[in-house]
């Protein structure tokens, strides 16, 4: 019994390019096979013949022409060129892509509070009663109560946070402060929901409740610095997303229940049953209204932030001294803190911008590497 011929391996055998095991196998076979031995010697002769072909010299002037053309390309090979030599349409496309990426990035950076800014703003002119009427009138035509949704249902995916702030401000004149607050509220697309004025011991003070759209909340709180000296500031946020979602689910269940009751009502003819169903329907409807009311309240509260501003007129410090050293020190401290705060805010902005750029840069780097590899693979 003899193993198969090793014809295919002979060529590599001649070149010494077989591994240990393969070579041993070929040699064992060659000992027993005359055909393969013959083939091997033919192959050796052939390789000798082929290798006897003399190398060709590059013609006269070849090197000189390469040199001339290389010098024409320019003093430098592409060594320091960081931008690839692209054909025109690719250059235009890459530029467009770059502009797009930067644009998206800029929008992201400037948008005040992420997706919240996209949330529809319900102005002060649209009272809850109006909203409620529209809801009720839409109800009968809605199957499964799909449109009878809680206000703002389409934005349920977003967090609903009720934002409130209490700010105490010391001003020179309370009347001026009231005017400024009104302007701040209106410029932010909000309004003054409540205001009161009083005098205690001859010192006038007032309180205001500002309602402004949540996206403008931070800006409005900051702009209160322009009204007077902020003596106290507390900001509070309460996440009501869960309660909101829960309310929505309960309303849906109740409405399903209502639908079933209505179906029963159509089928039954007994007066006693009709009365019972009617009673249950009234109860369900009442509960739906109450839940919807609560949801509306939450929605309103989370759409419009609430700022309670207490304004107090500065007491004239008539200490009689030539120079109020303490006040100066206080002002210096305030100025120092303000500067540090601004610097930190600047650093934070840069850090945030840089971190936002990281994915973009990573993406670009991967693209660049792939491009380079592709380019190198082509040569």
């Amino acid at each position: 019994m003899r193993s198969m011929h090793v014809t295919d391996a002979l060529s590599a055998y001649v070149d010494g390019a077989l591994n240990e095991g393969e070579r041993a196998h070929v040699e064992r076979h060659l000992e027993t096979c005359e055909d393969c031995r013959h083939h091997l010697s033919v192959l050796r002769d052939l390789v000798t013949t082929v290798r006897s072909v003399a190398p060709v010299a590059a013609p006269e002037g070849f090197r000189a022409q390469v040199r001339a053309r290389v010098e024409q390309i320019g003093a430098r090979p592409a060594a320091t060129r960081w931008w690839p030599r692209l054909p025109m349409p690719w250059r235009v496309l890459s530029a467009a892509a770059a502009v797009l990426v930067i644009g998206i990035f800029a929008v992201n950076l400037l948008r005040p509070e992420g997706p919240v800014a996209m949330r529809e703003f319900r102005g002060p002119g649209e009272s809850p009663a109006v909203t409620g009427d529209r809801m009720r009138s839409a109800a009968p035509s809605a199957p499964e109560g799909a449109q009878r949704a809680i206000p703002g249902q389409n934005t349920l995916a977003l967090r609903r946070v009720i934002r409130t702030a209490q700010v105490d401000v010391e001003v020179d004149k309370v009347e001026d402060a009231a005017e400024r607050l009104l302007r701040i509220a209106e410029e932010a697309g909000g309004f003054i929901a409540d205001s009161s004025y009083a005098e205690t011991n001859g010192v006038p003070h007032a309180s205001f409740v500002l309602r402004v759209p949540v996206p403008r909340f931070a800006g409005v709180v900051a702009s209160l610095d322009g009204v007077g000296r902020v003596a106290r500031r507390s900001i509070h946020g309460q996440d009501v997303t869960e309660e909101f979602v829960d309310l929505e689910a309960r309303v849906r269940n109740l409405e399903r229940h209502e639908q079933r009751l209505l179906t029963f009502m159509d089928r039954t003819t007994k007066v006693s049953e009709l009365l019972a169903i009617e009673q249950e329907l009234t109860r369900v409807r009442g509960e739906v209204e109450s839940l919807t009311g609560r949801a509306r309240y939450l929605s309103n509260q989370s759409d419009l932030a609430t700022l309670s501003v207490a304004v107090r007129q500065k007491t004239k410090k008539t200490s009689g001294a030539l120079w109020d050293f303490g006040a100066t020190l206080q002002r210096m401290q305030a100025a120092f803190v303000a500067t540090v705060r601004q610097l930190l805010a600047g650093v934070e902005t840069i850090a945030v911008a840089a971190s936002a750029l990281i994915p973009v840069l990573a993406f670009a780097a991967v693209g660049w590497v792939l491009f380079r590899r592709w380019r190198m693979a082509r040569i």
Partner: protein
Amino acid sequence: MNDAELVARSQQGDTDAYDQLVGTYQHRIFSLAYRITGNREDAWDAAQEAFLKAYRNLYGFHGRAAFSTWLHRIAVNAALDVVRRRAAQPPVPLDVTLRSLDDPADEVMRSDLQQRVHRAIAALPVEQRVAIVLRDLQGLRYEEIAGVLRIPIGTVRSRISRGREMLRVMLADLAPASGEGRTA
């Protein structure tokens, strides 16, 4: 100065350094292009193109592979480009013995044997031709060929093996020792 130093200088734009590299490799690269394209004119074009391409892409060469291997790869591709470009022309017939030199200025091919072998190599299917030229005329090892062509070693082996089988058939009359007499 060795290759690496010359490459580094060329990357900085030193055309003298690159000229030295060209001097070192011009004959090997021209030879390679000549065997793959089959004639001196195409070989000139392909080899010129190879050296220019190498210069332009020098920034992408990081010395992971030997410069010589890298240059071989570029030259093989340049030669194949030329071959493909003239593919519209009729292929070289297998019956190499009936062909005369179409390039009378070809002084290298003086001897009949050399001419026969050259024609036979030129008649090989292009993949096998490249493998045979790299192995038997340029003297590259199998691993180097795999690197130059970016194909597995097994493929290198089979291309060389099949190329030699074809050459054996085409050049059967050249080696009397391998004729019928010995198997009888």
